[in-house]
């Protein structure tokens, strides 16, 4: 063990100069010898500082710490040089070999379509509202101005639930056939202005085939305020079509019927496949039905205690599954309910 501080420093500096020429084994031995926690030269010297007079501690301590840093960086630099040397000997690599990957994962194409639709309406001041999938007959039909025993019910082949008890007519539980009950729930819970989009799963008593699924997603929108008109309905939905499809998408509105809106309309866009000249997908018409919409029926506002003479509104609904099939050219809706890894990974993240 060196006796003076000067000796210590000199000895260490000498050793430092040698680091640059050491091989791997020598380098590791030297590391332990100098910086080892138990018996390292520098470690011991640093421990000895506490026995020095107070005025010497600072200068010697600073000197030793500086040395320690120089040793550490010298060791690190030498290690790097050595490992590069190893690599350059192995430079004969085929860089066309495949890279190392990780599992990528992804959000379902239908969910992504829903997210994209929601995003467009977010920018138009709409928030997301949700509601239960098991509903009462009243909220699914009655409050939405469906007359009882009316053929309009045929458009909604309903799955009913057997929850026991003996619920009176109107209170029977069913699986909602559309997300429209959430319109009622939203309007009952908060006064206008209301602007919401409602994504969710809906159910119909439909045999599962290439174009029908007994459970499917729907996304609805509702805007209720003073002064909302049919012009706003058209403007908002044309804006949506231009954002979602493309700015030059042709759009048309034609009369239709839904019990909960009046006037009611279907919105068509120019066929995505043939561009309007007519093909099988559009049944030769050049148009594709994208969504149903209309001005909220006064009776619906009344069943939510909203004054239809003061407030007006519009509502719309569309099927993300169908839109997903159109967008990606998926021929069979059932594929969207299967977890085939090959199918899901086609769509990437």
């Amino acid at each position, binding site marked *: 063990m060196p006796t003076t501080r000067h000796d210590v420093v000199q000895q260490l500096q000498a050793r430092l100069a040698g680091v640059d020429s050491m091989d791997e084994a020598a380098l590791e031995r030297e590391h332990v010898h100098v910086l080892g926690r138990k018996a390292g030269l520098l470690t011991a010297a640093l421990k000895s500082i506490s026995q020095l007079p107070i005025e010497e501690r600072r200068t010697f301590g600073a000197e030793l710490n500086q040395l320690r840093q120089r040793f550490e960086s010298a060791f690190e630099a030498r290690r790097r040089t050595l490992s590069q040397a190893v690599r350059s000997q192995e430079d004969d690599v085929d860089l066309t070999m495949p890279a190392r990957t990780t599992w990528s994962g992804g959000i379902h194409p*239908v969910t992504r379509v829903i997210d994209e639709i929601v995003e467009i309406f977010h920018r138009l001041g709409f928030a997301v509202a949700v509601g239960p999938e098991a509903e009462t007959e009243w909220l699914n039909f009655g409050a939405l101005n469906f007359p009882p025993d009316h053929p309009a019910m045929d458009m909604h082949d309903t799955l009913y639930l057997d929850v026991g008890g003996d619920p009176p007519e109107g209170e029977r539980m069913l699986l909602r056939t559309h997300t429209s009950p959430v319109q009622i729930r939203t309007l009952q819970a908060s006064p206008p202005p209301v*602007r919401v989009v409602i994504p969710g799963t809906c159910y119909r008593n439909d045999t599962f085939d290439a174009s029908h699924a007994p459970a499917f997603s729907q996304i609805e929108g509702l805007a209720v305020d003073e002064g909302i008109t049919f012009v706003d309905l058209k403007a908002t939905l044309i804006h949506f079509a231009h954002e979602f499809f493309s700015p030059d998408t042709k759009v048309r509105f034609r009369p239709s019927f839904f019990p909960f809106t009046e006037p009611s309309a279907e919105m068509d866009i120019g066929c995505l496949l043939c561009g309007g000249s007519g093909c099988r997908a559009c049944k030769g*018409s050049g148009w594709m039905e994208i969504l149903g919409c209309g001005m909220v029926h006064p009776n619906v506002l009344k069943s939510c205690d909203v004054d239809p003479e003061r407030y007006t509104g519009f509502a719309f609904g569309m099927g993300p599954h169908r839109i997903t099939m159109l967008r990606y050219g998926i021929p069979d809706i059932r594929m969207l309910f299967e977890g085939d890894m090959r199918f899901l990974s086609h769509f990437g993240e």
Partner: protein
Amino acid sequence: MNISRKWLEAFLRQPLDTHDLTERLAMLGAPVDSVERSHAALSGLVVGLVKDTQPHPDADRLSLCTVFDGQDDYQVVCGAPNVEAGKSYPFARVGTVMPGGFTIEKRKIRGLTSYGMLCSAKELELGEDAGGIMELATDADPGTGFLEAMALDDECLEIDVTPNRPDLLGHKGVARELAAGYGIQFRLPAIEGDYPSVPAPVRADGAEGTTGGVRVAIEDPEGCSRFLGAVIRGLTVGPSPEWLRSRLEAVGTRSINNIVDATNYVLMELGQPLHAYDLTSLHGPAVIARRGVAGETVLTLDGTERTVDGDMTVIADEDGAIGIGGVMGGETTEVRNSTRDIFLECASFQPSRIRRTRSTLGLSTDASFRFERGVDRWAAPDALRRCLEIILATAGGTLDGDPVDVWPEPTNPPRIFLRPARVRQVLGEEIPWEALEQYLVAIGATVVSKPDDGRMAVDVPGWRPDLREEIDLVEEVARMHGYQNFSSELRPFRVGSLPDATSDVAARAVRRGLSAEGLYEVVTMPMHRGEGAESVPLLNPLSAEEAFLRRRLIPGLVREVERNWAQGVRDIRLFEVGTVFRMAGPGERPEEEIHVAGLISGRRHPRHWTDGGHSGDCDQWDVAALFRRAVALANPAATVQVEGGSWVAVSAAGSVVGRTERIDADAPPWAAPVYGFEVVLDPAERQSQRYRALPETPGSTRDVSLVLHQDATAEAVETAIRATRGTRLESVEVLSEFRGGDLPAGSRSVAFRLTFRDPERTLRDAEVDKAFRRILQAVQQQVGVAPRAVDGGAAEE
């Protein structure tokens, strides 16, 4: 609803272009689902002019014709006796596909080549006459399409009629809409043939009247509000004339006989169902509309015995029920070929009663379809007269007395008041009074007055039961104005007063987080087999396999794993975010929760050549990490604990809100084990992270290997380490686990790395050593675990 273009042309008295018609109907609210050409199989035939005919040199019965198709002459060998030079016949050239599906080819007949065929009516499936070729009474030029020349070039348009528009379930209603759209007049087509004029039905007093000796009575005025009838005697049941047959065939209705065809014609033209009875089979004779008697049976026209109930309206004679009102007539009173006298019924039935009746009986007919949507009861007299005229023109006979009209409680279509200001409020554009009036008149309404209060009094037409309140007229105005003629300028709006639903925000974060972990989202069907008493059953399930709502997501995901195996896919990483259901009390709304579940099976990393193809398969430690990630995303307030052989997430309230599972599935031998997890999504709003200053002082680490005996757990060690106070401990890491060697059986050595740090200053080694020793003592005391090896020398002291 099937619509014939030619029938519409007869109403509008002008030719219609099918494409334009399709567009217009769509824009009026009755889109065309499909267009089918009538006699499409004959579209290849042309009018052929026989220029010359010679006997075949080698066959007596054959002739050798020169047929001109407007461009070329063809040599055609013909076997028909009636071919004459200078006349036109249907000509199928070489290459023409015939109705039977065969293609005309060049053919040698007795040594001479025939380039085509002249056809008989039977060969064209236009009639039974096979005796000779079909002589065309046409002045069309040779080469003209045969269908065009014979005016057979009709199209059947299948239009999609919404349930609020029963008026479009007949050609007249569609013609009316088109006339309004085109701004032209329309008129009922003339009936071909001679018939006497039919007097207007005579209104009976009260609920009963007679016509031609038949008593007509309404005993169920709620179910049947109006009942008209007439008697024709001395008619002849037989085939319908060509015009009637072709009208019906053009809309896909099979011709039966002139009586049934007449009623079907009026059904398709005016939308009014009628029914003809064989008069001699009627007991009384009487026709009574009354409620059914529970248990009463009716043998309907389709040969089925049906049991009726008191909610149904039956048509009865003096002996009993003979038909189900508005749905189907009975077999016992059916018009037969021998029938000479008939009673013709034209009645109005109550829509919702008809709907319940046909649903109870499972019997939907053209009549019930229209009655449940609403048939114009004010137009019933015209429909009856129209039908009588057709029968008199096609079957002869004479009307026995005036038709009777039983209508005990006559009503008028409603009057609705329309405020122009309301039109503007809803539609967003000012539509002048004159235009409003014009639009409403165009749909058949009567604008009664212009009173002082600014409202328009509108009497709606009887064929529009959907027009009941002001908003219904607003829609008519919009429709007639044309949806395309409203502005579509985006105007300023107020944003809604609601925030995004927190559960949706949370679900979206979960989806992003789990897909970043290399999992693919799937959406599976929520209907499953039951899983215990808490599963919610469906009343009308699609199948026994789908008779309940799911309680959890994993079973659905397992099926998808099996689907992948069936396709030979071994590396499977799936997750789902979906609703699950649980029974609440009897009659109560089921409880719903959003769950998050995932399954993994197969390689931990994608294959890479540097591994030599051997990257390990996922095991419980992989699912443990995914589970922790899913819990952090879906239910951040929950803590993950060990329970049984797996991990569970426990909420602050102490309930289990998630768990991992080793899945037993029907795996092929090459499959890897499957691990899964499922967590309840907590819909509460997430707290945002707070900034924490990053340390600026160096940390100091100490490693120790501890020998853990059977019962000791890493968690217990870590708890003891962390519980030691005043150590400035920052983190604990498990570095490795070692079993065997000189360790006692059942023991293992686990290496921990402890990191110490003081945010304010650099810790001295001695301080760290001291804290480390205190920690090791605490671990020894609390867990009974001793160090095996220590980096830092502390253990030797």
